[in-house]
C-alpha cells in the first residue's frame, strides 16, 4: 500500500475540512439569515460544484491559477513558483470543490435553530457575534460536524479535479484515488485492491459517523 499517497490524501482532506469550517461558517450564516431578494444567485453558485463535472471545475481552476493568468502571475511573483501542480494549488481546488458539502449542512443546521431563542439572546444585549458563538453554533454542532465529515470524505474520493490541477506528483499531489488508477495501469491489481478496500472502509466509517451524529432515536449527546 502506498502510505505516502494515503498521508497526502488525509492531509489534504483534513486541511480542506478545517479550512471549510472557517470559510463555510460565514457563508452559511449569510445564506441562512440574509433576506436579500437575490440570495438564490449566491446559493446556486455555492451549490455549483455539486453538479459541475470535476473536469470543468478543474479546467477553470487550472486556467485561473496558471502562470498565464493575472492571479497565477501574482501568486508566482509573491511565492516564487506557480500554483498549479503544488499541494497548495490542490488544497485551493479541493476547498472550492467541497464547498457545498460544508456550507449546505451548516446552513441547514442554522435554519433549524429556533428564531425565538436568537431574538431572546439579542434582547439580552448579547451581540450578534456573541449570539452566534454562544447560541447558534452550539445548537448547530451536529450539522457542523456533518459538514466537516462530508467535506473530509468528499475530498478523500476526489479524482477529476486532482488529476487536472494536481498533476499526480508523488508525495505532493498523488492522492489515494490517483494511486489506485496508477496501480491498475501498472497491472498491479493486488495493490489497487488493497488501497481501494481502505477507501471503502474509511468511506463507510465516515458515513456511519454522519448518520450516528444525526440519528433521532438515541442522541449522541443527550440534550437536557
Amino acid at each position, binding site marked *: 500500500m502506498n502510505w505516502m499517497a494515503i498521508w497526502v490524501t488525509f492531509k489534504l482532506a483534513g486541511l480542506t475540512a478545517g479550512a471549510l469550517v472557517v470559510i463555510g461558517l460565514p457563508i452559511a450564516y449569510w445564506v441562512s439569515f440574509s433576506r436579500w431578494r437575490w440570495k438564490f444567485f449566491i446559493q446556486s453558485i455555492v451549490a455549483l460544484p455539486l453538479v459541475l463535472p470535476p473536469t470543468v471545475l478543474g479546467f477553470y481552476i487550472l486556467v485561473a491559477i*496558471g502562470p498565464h493568468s493575472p492571479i497565477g502571475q501574482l501568486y508566482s511573483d509573491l511565492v516564487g*513558483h506557480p500554483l498549479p501542480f503544488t499541494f497548495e494549488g490542490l488544497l485551493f481546488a479541493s476547498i472550492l470543490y467541497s464547498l457545498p458539502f460544508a456550507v449546505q449542512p451548516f446552513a441547514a443546521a442554522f435554519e433549524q435553530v429556533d428564531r*425565538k431563542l436568537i*431574538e431572546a439572546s439579542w*434582547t439580552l444585549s448579547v451581540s450578534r457575534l456573541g449570539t452566534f458563538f*454562544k447560541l447558534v453554533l452550539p445548537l448547530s454542532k451536529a450539522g*457542523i460536524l456533518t459538514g466537516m465529515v462530508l467535506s473530509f470524505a468528499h475530498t478523500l474520493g476526489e479524482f477529476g479535479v486532482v488529476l487536472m490541477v494536481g498533476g499526480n*506528483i508523488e508525495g505532493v499531489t498523488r492522492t489515494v484515488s490517483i494511486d489506485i488508477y496508477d496501480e491498475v*495501469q501498472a*497491472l498491479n491489481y493486488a495493490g489497487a485492491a488493497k488501497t481501494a478496500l481502505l477507501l471503502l472502509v474509511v468511506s463507510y466509517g465516515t458515513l456511519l459517523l454522519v448518520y450516528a451524529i444525526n440519528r433521532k432515536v438515541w442522541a449522541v449527546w443527550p440534550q437536557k
Partner: protein
Amino acid sequence: MTAWSRPQRDVGLGLVLTRQSNHAIRLSLLAVVVAALFLLLSSISALAVEISIATASDLNFAFKELVAEYEKASGNQVKLTLGSSGNFYTQIHNGAPFDLYFSADIAYPKKLEESGLTVPGSLYRYAVGRIVLWAGNDSRIDVTRGFEVLREPSVKKIAIANPKHAPYGRAAVSAMAYFKVSDQVKNKLILGENISQAAQFIESGACEIGVIALSLALAPAMKGKGTYWEVPAEAHPPLEQGAVILKSSTRQKSAMQFLTFIKSPPGREILTRYGFVVPESR
C-alpha cells in the same frame, strides 16, 4: 415578539449559553491544533531531496527497473509520474514542477525547448519505440495475421492510446491507415488515456485486441498472458523519444546525473531489454 423583548433571564436559555459554548470552544480548539499539526508534519516531509520525473507511460515497467538501479547506484530518490506525453507537455507549459521530462515523442520536448522552458543542450533522444498488435490468450485471435485480423467481425473492441495526446496512439492510427483498415476499425476503437491504460484494457480482457508499446508487451506483468505481432517499422512514422531537463528545476545537477545514467551501459541495457532501440553510444 413583545414577550421576548422583556429583559429577563430565562433559565433554560442561560443553560444553553454556558454549557454548549464549552463544546464549541473545544471543537474549534481541536480544529486549530489538528491544522497546526498537519502543517508541522508537512514541512518536515518537505526536507528530503528527490528528483521528480514526468514519464511517458510506455516506460511504465522499464522505468521502474531503471529507477531502482539508479537509486541503488546514486543514493538519490526518484519520484515518477506516469502519463501521456501530450498531457505532460500541457502541464509543464502551465508550470508543473518536474525536473525531467521523458516524452514518447521528441516533438514535445523540442517545442518546450523553443519556448525556452528547458536547460539548453539537455535534449536527448534516448530511444526509438516500437508498437505491437497484442491479443490476450482467451481471445484466440491469431495476431500473426497482422492488421488484417482487425477486419474480422469477431473483433469488436480494439484498444489504442488516445491519439490526441499520446504518441503511441498516433502511431497506431498511422499503422491502421498504412494497412488500409482505418474505415473498418473506426467504430471499434477504445481509447485509453495513455498507452498503459490501453494495455490494461486488453490485459484485463475488456478489449480482445489492441495496439500497444513493445516495451509493455515485454513487461513481466504482460508476458505469457497473450501473444503479440511486431508492427513493421515502416508502417508508421518512427517513435523517436526525447528527454529534457526543465529550466524551472532546482535540482538540475541530479537531473543531469539521471540522464547520464540513462546513457550509460546499464541504463541502455535495461531499455534494450524492454524492446527500445537505443542510440549508438558516443
